[in-house]
């Protein structure tokens, strides 16, 4: 949808400012143009032709993490994240020269190398031949940087009777970064290519560990194409289709960070908690802000605005320290990376990814 299609949504914004109570980029800058209301005003200015974007304008628009907490705080529930996405798609067409080089390279990398990181496709993890109709869609981040998370996911799935296929270098990038940053035409192409590629391989069920791939495949793709396969997050599959049981050799106090794309976006709140609570010797404690109130870790803007992103992940880590957790578990590689970078400064707490914890609990390690 174009920005014009969101005109009604833009005018629905009352400018009441209630989003200040949620927006993390506002909380850490106290600059209203880095708040949801500010971004809606900026979208309106663009729409009505009253403003020519400049570098600051781009920074305000591109620094939104699309975490969607503004909608939780917004009385009329304005779709701010969708407005920002639509605004970015206009800017990608009209002001591409103002995009930071990092984003342009990331977009080109997806189109040329099937990953947003600019690394050769060969750096993705190895493939596994399993059931042809069930695909474990690893995601670029895990495949390139955290293959152990994918290996642990596989271990858990296999132990519970599922032997999915892993495509390795052949796995396409889901293309989220394209739709996130406004390259919508490119995204549409990628979405339809990925869907037909998976269809041709006879895939009936896609399991993801990455919440971003999950949201992209399950929700964004549906905007432009119809899916012939089912998409499940690993936590959904483990709760619905298997009976996961695990135990830790030592007691551990664990908290869970709801990734924006899994929680607020897709409503998957209970399954990860059920899995954690099923592990013996694990004491589960909630973060001060959890479920729909969960604080964005800053991951999506870490490369562009590292200082701001660090303040956001620091806040998550502080919350975990407050509730006495020694491990902050997340089922998202982006969140893991963010939280780990802040947790590194605190001896009492560490970041831990869910598959690794589950694999360890299965081994009773």
């Amino acid at each position, binding site marked *: 949808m174009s920005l014009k299609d969101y005109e009604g949504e833009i005018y629905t914004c*009352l400018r009441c400012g209630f989003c200040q109570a949620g927006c993390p980029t506002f909380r850490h800058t106290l*600059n209203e143009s880095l708040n949801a209301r500010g971004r809606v005003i900026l979208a309106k200015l663009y729409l009505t032709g009253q403003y020519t974007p400049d570098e600051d304008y781009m920074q305000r628009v591109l620094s939104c993490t699309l975490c969607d907490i503004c909608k939780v705080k917004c009385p009329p529930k304005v779709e701010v994240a969708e407005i920002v996405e639509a605004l970015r798609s206009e800017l990608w067409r009209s002001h591409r020269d103002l995009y930071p080089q990092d984003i342009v390279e990331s977009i080109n990398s997806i189109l040329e190398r099937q990953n947003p990181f600019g690394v050769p496709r060969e750096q993705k993890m190895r493939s596994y031949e399993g059931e042809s109709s069930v695909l474990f869609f690893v995601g670029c981040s895990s495949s390139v940087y955290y293959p152990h998370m994918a290996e642990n996911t596989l271990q858990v799935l296999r132990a519970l009777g599922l032997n999915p296929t892993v495509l390795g270098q052949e796995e396409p990038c889901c293309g989220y970064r394209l739709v996130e940053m406004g390259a919508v035409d490119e995204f549409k192409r990628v979405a339809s290519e990925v869907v037909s590629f998976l269809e041709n391989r006879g895939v009936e069920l896609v399991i993801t560990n990455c919440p971003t791939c999950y949201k992209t495949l399950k929700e964004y793709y549906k905007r432009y194409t119809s899916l012939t396969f089912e998409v499940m997050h690993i936590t959904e599959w483990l709760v619905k289709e298997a009976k996961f049981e695990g135990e830790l050799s030592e007691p551990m106090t664990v908290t869970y960070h709801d990734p924006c794309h899994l929680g607020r976006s897709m409503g998957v709140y209970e399954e990860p908690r059920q899995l954690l609570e099923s592990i013996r010797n694990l004491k589960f404690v909630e973060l001060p802000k959890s479920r729909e109130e969960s604080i964005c870790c800053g991951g999506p803007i870490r490369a562009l605005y590292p200082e701001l992103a660090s303040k956001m992940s620091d806040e998550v880590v502080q919350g975990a320290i407050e509730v006495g957790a020694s491990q902050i578990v997340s089922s998202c590689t982006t969140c893991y990376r963010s939280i780990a970078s802040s947790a590194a400064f605190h001896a009492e707490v560490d970041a831990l990814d869910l598959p690794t914890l589950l694999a360890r609990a299965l081994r009773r390690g």
Partner: protein
Amino acid sequence: MISDAVVRKLEDIVGSENVSTSPTDLHVYSYDASIAHATPDVIVWPQTTEQVSQIMKLAYEEEIPVTPRGAGSCLSGGPLPLKGGISITMTKMTRILDLNPNRLQVSVEPGVVVDRLNEYLQPHGLFYPINPASSSIATIGGCVGEDAGPLRGVKYGTTKNWVLGLEVVLPNGKVIHVGSKTFKHVAGYDLVRLMVGSEGTLGIFTKINLRLAPIPEAVAVASAFFDSADAAGKGVRDAILSGVDPSGIELMERAVVEAASKHAGLKLPQAEFLILYEIAGSKESIEPRVRKLAKVLKEAGATAVDVAYEAEERARLWKARKAAFPALSRLRPTCIMEDVAVPIDNVGKLLEALRSLAKKHDVMVATFGHAGDGDLHPTITTDERDEEEMKRVAAFRADMYKAVVDLEGTITGEHGVGITKKPYLKLQFREDEIEVMRSIKRAIDPKNILNPGKII
């Protein structure tokens, strides 16, 4: 326009990271929650009284307009810099300075958000009762500037009843302290009352000493349904006269209940008027007071009265009330919330007048609000892009203010005059009275640099 030299001086005072002349930021700081807008030349975020004082001294010397801003949730255009100049934004002064539970007092900086203050006070069994609907973001400084009102105004009044003292930076940069740490004092003119609700035109508050209240032991909410404006008006008046001491009385008319129920996914009985009454106090006092209230309301003409004692059920009713404005805002592209108040025995007549004027001008108006304070929010849903309709809206507003003044009321109960109600102040006050206000403004701000163009 402001010269580069002045911008550099501002940067020297507060640090360059606390000054912005970015056109992107200036555009965003052109707005509040009203439909007005006006653009500053520079935004400054001070962090100390000394910085605020230095900024004012500079502005006074250079005759630069300065407009204070909190969260920017004002509904009357208060923080919008009509003459450009400096937007002085107080949101980085967020310290809670001194809590004294034994005195029921706390001292805060102006950027403290109301809900944050109440979270801080809660473990002490205390609260600051003036929580406007925007309490999740509204700053104490902004509330003091606008004399904000709460949902429970019947018992607790408005901000002015809870401000004991203020540190104020005057337009010439001098810092004064007004008020007293006592609950009563009549030493000299009441400058606290003068400053509270002055909409940023007389001084900038840098410290605020607030009175606090103990959190009530128990709460119940009664909902009553009425078929006519007259009966609803009686239901408001008689509840207050009955002596059952409600803390808040909130009204929603049919269109609001319908929209709010749909928006919040609640099933509420439909009636011409739904009124919620909150009764708070000691545990043992609640039930007899609620019983008496129900009897009074039935005698006043309520078709039904329900009582919610449980927190969950109470939350459901307040959820509907809180959904009123957002639900209405979804009906049309533009939503203008008005804020008029009348004496409590004229509420019924005001409700009737609003309905007939909306019909006369063919404007969509749905009314809700703090009926127990006589303060209602007739909310116009319209489309700012439709010039012809906006003319009808303007005609409705003018007639509405006249009707309110005829009912011995006020053109604004809690949102302030700001920009949006400035043309109507003369309906309520004669020239002689407005001239007294002007002479006060001249005495304190002879160069007219502090929030110029507002109120008078």
